[in-house]
């Protein structure tokens, strides 16, 4: 570490890290001058509307677009046949590779003769306005031959089940097994075995901004630009290159301001292809902005899983082994891969010492919207499974729920703790750092866990049912291999940082600027952060898996550090000073005790910008620009614990969450304010998953919740008081010790709330085995428990623990 920065007047690198700095993004957003996808308006722009299947499964006998094409203002009506001349393949081949696939279920760009979920795009109208495009939709005639629809992933795998794809042999898209240790032995020697059958239901990402594309074709340059509200612009560009058969140099994907991602926007969609093709065909700018109804039926969703689990423990409630089956609803197509199921399987065993594990996972194809990650990506389900099981163990063994967990959590002194599993990319899973027992202790203390029993009894005496629930979690963050960043200082002294990372509302630009400013001793406002533009940096992976701060942040930090060192070297050479004598501040590098002797950033950039015939300073390469591909293969594991306090109205089934306490450890925080914001958003989402959000389908796989009156997002009135507690165990995996934080809040929250409801209802002996749980279901559970108690009075008495 150089002493340079510590001189008087100079900036100390590292001084900005860990400070709650105001964000660069805010001003434009607050004034309404930000530019989201739908804010892009270009001369001559045309507008697209999609005709979507109203059937969950049907053969298309005929599409007649003649009347729609004849409507004034309509420029084209496109079906798959119209696109085929432009495509190398009609299918979006996007699956992450895996040897476990049994079926290839690639999505067509537009329906290929059979539609497999309600909302699948069949045809696209391109018109002068969205209004006219929608008028034309009504004029397209489609003859459907309805086929039996598979609405339930359990039914999908029954013998003789209807087929989700008429041309496939069965509905089992993949089967995988995660196993280690001697599971037979674990169960053979168990002092106690507990069981649980669990269900976690489907919801959506529900970014407030829906998806959207604006495609612009420049036929002079034969170049296509796609503005897309995507979390992964480079991936979109690569997919476009493949499916359109165009060189990457003839393509540019730009992410404008994005109104939230939460997972579904990382996917490459049929609409992205169709809008691009429309621009190529019509040689006019073309815009499509998804409306909310489309968002409910065409944007990917997640979480449907059925778990059937057994846990073996010794007489001290120490875990010996876990085994079971999990059934995962894959939806109608492979829009991403097997990653969600993997994530769920791993999450189960991460926080605890589990000597043996055997989980068999089946992924079933259904006639529902494809499943891909939504904030949490399988991890909330895994946490739900494990935490519910541990509550059952505690209850059946008459132990305190926290104590059962304490005995099983991975201990701080055992870190790093390697787990006998590998990621879907084949990388060893090692819990790199953290103190899980301490995190649990933090939330217990804050919740007055020990004093709660008395409060609960007092409340019950007034007829109020309150309960406390606990859940631990580990979140896999910072998925590798890399996310590059380039830092550049130009000859005017302006600093920019460019990355493949995509900003979707999670403060990525501020994060990058803060890290660069920290190294270069300037204010964040002096840095232009450019995200999500494939023309600015060759490679990029994008925003998901709580990875960008870890990966792009580390790269930006290293690149800025390289620039700092290079500037010091150049100025040191010019003024014959050694590094220790130099300071970096106010956009200059100078001799600390003789500030006149120094150069501005612009002058330094000029010095290495190259003058014809003049030599560069010795030992210095050309240009004041550095690109880093910080590479981290292993994931950095964030951990924490949550306690929820609820009150249940046993006459209406209403659950009020009074308080939520979350402790978490994401290692070194760059901007604590932003960390808190991420956690709060995740908690709100988790609260939705616990109690409100339910993407319903009927038995013909018709969605029954397609507006915000039916699908309930948490509102301001539903949010409880939240306390956030922080620990910091920097990961050894990257230079700043960063771990991700974007999904932490959503992972333990449903499990903690379910646990709290169960606790509140302990006088009845009710078990909560699903998320979300609706008031009417709570009442039926209470009713069933009452009837059970009438038949057999013992459990009711035992219910009051």
């Amino acid at each position, binding site marked *: 570490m150089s002493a340079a920065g510590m001189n008087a007047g100079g900036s100390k690198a590292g001084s900005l890290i860990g400070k709650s700095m*105001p*964000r660069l*993004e*805010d*001003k434009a*957003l*607050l*004034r*309404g*001058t*930000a*530019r*989201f996808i*739908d*804010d892009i*308006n270009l001369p001559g722009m045309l507008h697209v509307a999609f005709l979507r299947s109203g059937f969950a499964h049907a053969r298309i006998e005929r599409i007649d677009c003649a009347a729609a094409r004849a409507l*004034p*203002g309509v420029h084209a009506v496109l079906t798959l046949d119209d696109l085929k001349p432009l495509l190398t393949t009609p299918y979006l081949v996007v699956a992450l590779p895996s040897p476990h696939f049994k079926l290839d279920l690639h999505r067509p760009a537009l329906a290929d003769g059979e539609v497999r979920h309600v909302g699948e795009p069949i045809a696209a109208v391109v018109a002068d306005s969205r*209004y006219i495009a929608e008028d034309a939709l009504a004029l397209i005639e489609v003859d459907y031959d309805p086929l039996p629809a598979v609405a339930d992933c359990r039914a999908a795998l029954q013998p003789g089940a209807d087929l989700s794809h008429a041309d496939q042999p069965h509905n089992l898209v993949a089967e995988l097994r995660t196993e280690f240790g001697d599971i037979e032995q674990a169960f053979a020697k168990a002092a106690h075995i507990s069981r649980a059958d669990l269900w976690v239901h489907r919801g959506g990402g*529900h*970014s*407030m*901004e*829906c998806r959207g594309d604006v495609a612009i074709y420049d036929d002079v340059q034969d170049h296509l630009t796609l503005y897309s509200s995507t979390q992964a612009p480079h991936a979109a560009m690569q997919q476009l290159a493949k499916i359109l058969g165009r060189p990457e140099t003839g393509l540019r994907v730009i992410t404008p*301001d*994005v*109104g*939230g991602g*939460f997972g579904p926007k990382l996917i490459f969609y049929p609409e992205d292809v169709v809008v691009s093709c429309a621009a190529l065909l019509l040689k006019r700018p073309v815009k499509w902005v998804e*409306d*909310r109804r489309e968002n409910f039926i065409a944007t990917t969703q997640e979480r449907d899983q059925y778990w059937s689990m057994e846990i073996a423990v010794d007489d001290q409630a120490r875990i010996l082994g876990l085994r079971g089956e999990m059934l995962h609803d894959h939806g109608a197509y492979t829009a991403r891969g097997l990653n969600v199921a993997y994530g769920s399987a791993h999450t189960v065993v991460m926080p605890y010492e589990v000597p043996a594990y055997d989980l068999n996972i089946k992924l079933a194809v259904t006639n529902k919207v494809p499943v891909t990650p939504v904030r949490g990506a399988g991890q909330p389900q895994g946490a739900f499974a494990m935490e519910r099981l541990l509550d059952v163990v505690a209850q059946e063994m008459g132990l305190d729920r926290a104590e059962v967990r304490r005995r099983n959590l991975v201990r701080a002194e055992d870190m790093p703790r390697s787990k006998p599993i590998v990621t879907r990319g084949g990388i060893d899973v090692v819990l790199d750092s953290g103190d899980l027992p301490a995190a649990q202790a933090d939330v217990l203390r804050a919740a007055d866990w020990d004093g709660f029993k008395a409060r609960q009894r007092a409340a019950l005496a007034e007829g109020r049912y309150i309960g406390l629930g606990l859940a631990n979690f580990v979140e896999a963050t910072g998925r590798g291999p890399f996310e590059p960043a380039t830092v550049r200082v130009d000859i005017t002294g302006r600093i920019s940082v460019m990355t493949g990372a995509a900003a*979707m*509302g*999670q*403060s990525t630009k501020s994060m990058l600027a803060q890290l660069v400013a920290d190294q270069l001793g300037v204010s964040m406002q002096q840095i232009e952060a450019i995200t999500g533009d494939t023309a600015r940096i060759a490679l990029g992976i994008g925003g998901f898996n709580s990875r960008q701060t870890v990966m792009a942040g580390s790269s930006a930090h290293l690149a800025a550090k390289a620039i700092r060192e290079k500037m010091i070297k150049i100025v040191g050479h010019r003024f014959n000073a050694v590094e220790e004598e130099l300071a970096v501040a106010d956009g200059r590098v100078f001799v600390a005790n003789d500030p006149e002797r120094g150069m501005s950033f612009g002058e330094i950039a000029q010095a290495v910008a190259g003058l014809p015939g003049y030599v560069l300073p010795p030992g210095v390469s050309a240009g004041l620009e550095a690109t880093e591909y910080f590479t981290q293969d292993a994931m950095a594991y964030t951990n924490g614990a949550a306690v929820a306090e609820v009150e249940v109205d046993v006459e209406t089934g209403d659950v009020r969450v009074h308080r939520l306490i979350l402790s978490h450890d994401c290692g070194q925080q760059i901007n604590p*304010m*932003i960390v*808190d*914001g991420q956690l*709060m*958003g*995740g*908690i*709100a*989402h988790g609260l939705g998953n616990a109690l409100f959000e339910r993407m319903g389908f009927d038995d013909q796989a018709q969605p029954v919740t397609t*507006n*915000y*009156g039916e699908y309930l*997002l*948490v*509102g*301001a*009135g539903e*949010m409880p*008081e*939240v306390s956030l507690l922080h620990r910091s165990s920097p990961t050894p995996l990257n230079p700043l010790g960063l771990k991700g934080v974007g999904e932490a*809040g959503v992972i333990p929250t449903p499990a903690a709330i379910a646990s709290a409801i169960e606790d509140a209802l302990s006088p009845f002996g009710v078990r909560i085995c699903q998320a979300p749980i609706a008031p009417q279901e709570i009442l039926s559970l209470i009713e069933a428990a009452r009837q059970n108690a009438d038949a057999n009075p013992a459990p009711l008495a035992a219910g009051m623990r």
Partner: protein
Amino acid sequence: MSETRSISLTVNGRAVAADVEVRLTLADFLRQNLRLTGTHLGCEHGVCGACTILLDGRSARSCLMLAVQANGHAITTVEGLAPNAEQMHPLQIAFQEQHALQCGFCTPGMLTTLTELLRDNPDPSAAQVREAISGNLCRCTGYNSIVDATLQAAKKLREGVPG
């Protein structure tokens, strides 16, 4: 092509006259015709609140109004909240300070709704703030920072501090 009408109205203090299709929503008129794209569309069925504007000072969903219905009225959008190009409204300042926005998509509707609240009730309780924004969905923030920001702005406004 559906029928068109001439309308004249005031938008953020400026007089505006235009010919509009009668079926054009007020939100689309503001966004497309006037290029005031700060007003966002998050649902177009009246639930999310992202499109909230002030109609003669009162909050309203601009996705649930026709542009022709704004004829003769005064509209304020998020672009019209700040006193000038340099200064921001106390609510805007508080939103930044309290990190009451992340992606910022819901923010314009929050700000317009809360502008009305603080005008009608300069000293709201936290519960009243929650109630006021109960018709505004936000997926990013979990709302609590928005409540804090509103209380902070209310205090500043009561003290007469411009921000």
